[in-house]
């Protein structure tokens, strides 16, 4: 499975890199929304793990840009966020084309299970 991680937290990125690449997936990560958007435009990913709260170009900006370009529904975008997002906000994003949301903190096993479910 080809997974793109867009998160400004380096530790999380590196740990996911170890775990996901170690378990047979192809995981690439970027640290900001601008780079993430570039990767999404250029390459095809099975799943995009997107953090919402990032400085300068946030996850919301990424979603809005993808929505404008008509690329949002072509990706399985999973929000992976520590922000106190309201359920209504998430529902709104899901209506727009976001696949689902995983709230941090989360157990590694749970995350892997969720990714497998999404892939199926």
């Amino acid at each position, binding site marked *: 499975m080809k997974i793109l991680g867009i998160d400004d*937290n380096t*530790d*999380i990125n590196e*740990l*996911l890199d*170890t*775990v996901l690449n170690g378990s047979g997936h192809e995981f690439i990560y970027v640290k900001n929304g601008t780079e993430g958007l570039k990767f999404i435009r250029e390459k095809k990913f099975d799943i995009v793990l997107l953090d*919402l*709260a990032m*400085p*300068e170009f*946030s*996850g*919301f900006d990424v979603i809005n840009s993808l929505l404008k370009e008509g690329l949002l529904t072509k990706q399985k975008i999973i929000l992976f966020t*520590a*922000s*106190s*997002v*309201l359920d209504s*906000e998430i529902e709104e994003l899901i209506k727009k084309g976001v696949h689902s949301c995983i709230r*941090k*903190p*989360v*157990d*590694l*096993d749970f995350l892997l299970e969720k990714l497998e479910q999404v892939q199926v």
Partner: protein
Amino acid sequence: MIVLSIAMVFLVQSLYFASQALATSSNANNDCPIFSIKYGCDLSAWSHLIIDGLIAAFLGVFFHHLAHKQSLKLKIIVEEHDAMRKRRKEFAIQSLKNHFTTLLFSMSLVNRLEPMYASDTKNRDNIKDQINRNYEIISRVVNDIKNVMFFLNDVLEPQIITDVNQLCQTINQGYVKDENKQSKLTDYTETKNKINRLCRTFDEVHPAIVPIQGLFKRTSPDSPSNTRSLKKLIYQEIVLYYRHIFKRVYSSK
């Protein structure tokens, strides 16, 4: 405001000279008590009364306006401070949740690697390096959590601070160094449950308070956009205030 002040000075000056002219042109005598209005009497007392009344009214309006302006500024500062506090609170919770995620990931990885270290004799050194790297991450993240608690403790509930400190203590106690100086994480499940409980408390005590889009906005009251909006708001309020006064005057007429 400057135009109003200049107009007031001209008015006072002209009234003053008028009263002087009245005083010099009249002949004060016993038939002319101080506030009498008769031909040939000194009317300067009346003009003084009018001038003083006008000055008092002007000063009253002026000070009222100053107080109003000041209270507006204070209101904006208080609102700004409140918004900043909310953003700091949201940032603190977000940082803690991110750190907890890193902790859970690292601890989970250590738990996976430890049995491998025991069974896999070929890659022992490599696995040991990975385990130690994760212990370093755990140690650093615990320090980062303590820093968050130190710098943002004014926006967090005391109960949360206590719980997080207890969690840090539990994790620190989890490091058991045996005779081979091998670190061991004692109870992952206990830590995981504590973190989950803590996050439930976060959501109860601090529900979603700041839209995420606004989290990284500049909040300095000195920023040009804030100064502009402050000035605009004050002018709007002044215009509304004077409109209100004029309406009152016209309606009373």
